[in-house]
């Protein structure tokens, strides 16, 4: 009887030690998931969102949407051949969605900027306004691009990502990315042809002088 009881305890202990070992392994893996998947690109995620939405509240909303998508697709991300590229795509995609969604808010923001100006604005005030208008005009042009062209232009031209990386992110060939960038750039060039590319910087320099 004693032997049986000892054996029974052994079975239970064996089960407990198995579970503890497994628990620590899985917990370690969960935290490793964050350390491995997100921690190395935290800054890149924040900056890629900011460079597109350029507004604190919009950035917060965008990050929330991006994290929700990442949460839903966590298993897929874990086994993705390049999880960092996948996560950055989620961020840029979310930012592009915000851009399309919040267009009216942007226009409102521009009009608020004008209202904020004093009756006789100084050079800095005018510079800020001009900069804001330029920003809005460019974001509006990007917003009008088809999604793939917009993503390719943002990642290549704005964020300086290499073509092979963008190809991985967009799950297409490098040639396709180049075509997207070229077509997107051509459209932007046409739509923004009235702008002086060095406008705000020159104005700024002139005002300093």
């Amino acid at each position, binding site marked *: 009887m004693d032997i*049986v*009881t000892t*054996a*029974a*305890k052994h*079975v*239970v202990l*064996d*089960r*407990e030690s*198995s*579970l503890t*070992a*497994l*628990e620590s*392994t*899985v*917990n370690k*893996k*969960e*935290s490793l*998931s*964050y350390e491995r998947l*997100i921690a190395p690109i*935290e800054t890149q*995620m*924040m*900056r890629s*969102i*900011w*460079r597109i939405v350029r507004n*604190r509240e919009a*950035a*917060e909303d965008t*990050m929330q949407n991006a*994290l929700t998508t*990442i*949460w839903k697709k966590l*298993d*897929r991300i*874990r*086994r993705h*051949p*390049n999880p*960092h590229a996948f996560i950055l795509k989620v961020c840029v995609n979310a930012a592009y969605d915000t851009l399309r969604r919040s267009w009216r808010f942007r226009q409102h923001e521009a009009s608020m900027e004008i209202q904020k100006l004093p009756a006789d604005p100084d050079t800095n005030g005018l510079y800020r306004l001009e900069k804001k208008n330029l*920003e809005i005009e*460019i*974001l509006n042009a990007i917003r009008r691009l088809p999604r793939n062209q917009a993503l390719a232009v943002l990642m290549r*031209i*704005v964020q300086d990502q290499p073509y092979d990386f963008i190809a*991985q992110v967009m799950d297409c060939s490098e040639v396709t990315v180049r075509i997207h960038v070229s077509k997107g*750039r051509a459209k*932007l*060039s046409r739509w*923004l042809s009235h*702008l002086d*590319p*060095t406008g*705000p*910087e020159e104005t700024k320099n002139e005002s300093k002088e």
Partner: protein
Amino acid sequence: MSPKNKTGSPKTSDHKKREDANIDHLLKQTLKDDLPVDAEAVMKNQLEGFRLKLEEASGRTWAGQKTFQAILNLMDVRWARILVKKEVVLVISLMMIVLGSFIHSSGSPNQLTENLSVLGTSVVVSNEMIRSQSMECSIQMYGDNQEPLHYAIQWLSPNLSKVHVEDSRNAPLKTIWISEEDIVIDDHITDRRFEKKISTQLDDPILKPIVGYLEPEELVERMYGEWKLLKYQKQKECAQGIFAIALSDERATLEVTLDLCTHLPVSIKKILHGEEFGEERVIFNVRYTWNIPISPQSLAPTQILENPKG
């Protein structure tokens, strides 16, 4: 028709380049990398929240399992008093799995059921896999309109792997060595060697189909997080158990055959179902051998190829 400038003459290459440079400059200058401190702080908070959410989710899963463990432990004691065999634990766990899958198929969502199947598979199979020290597996892959490929994988705990890929005529295609930090790939077609950091891992199309089967922990992660058990069948005569598992994102099932003595998988077969394939089509077949002696030296990259073809 070539694009024309304002004067009506075709745009020169220089003009186009200048125009491209101008628009690039305009975008870069306007959409600067000037993340303000307050926006950065807000987003950092969100990321921290996300990290906590991940940890919390992991804790919740285990809390559920621990509750059920208490019940299971009691059952273990009663059964063990009668039979005192390790196999009994396995039988109980597998009964729970079958019960769990039955309730699943009856369509009544039940947290306990989930715990049952997770616990059963985790304890009996996953634990043995995680504790394993080495693994060899051979994968026969049957792609769409492609020649079958053969993969031979060797893995040594904690993180040394070697993958050798051959075509149907046994001609070597690639050999890949994976360590904690680096991946070394020998392309036998071009006789070239590539070395990569692990962060850019496995973007090679030839490796994509077998990602998730390269290491026991990857396999456990999939069993734990993604796969849903359909049924379990025990074959007494060969001391094997066969799990049929549904894959969440594909029209395919996995047939995992277990050795009931070692509680380790012997083989995994992936079967695609669909009218366009007739009845069923086997996509790949994996055969495992566990805990055999493998020396770390045998998993180190061979000397670099001296005379590359091009």
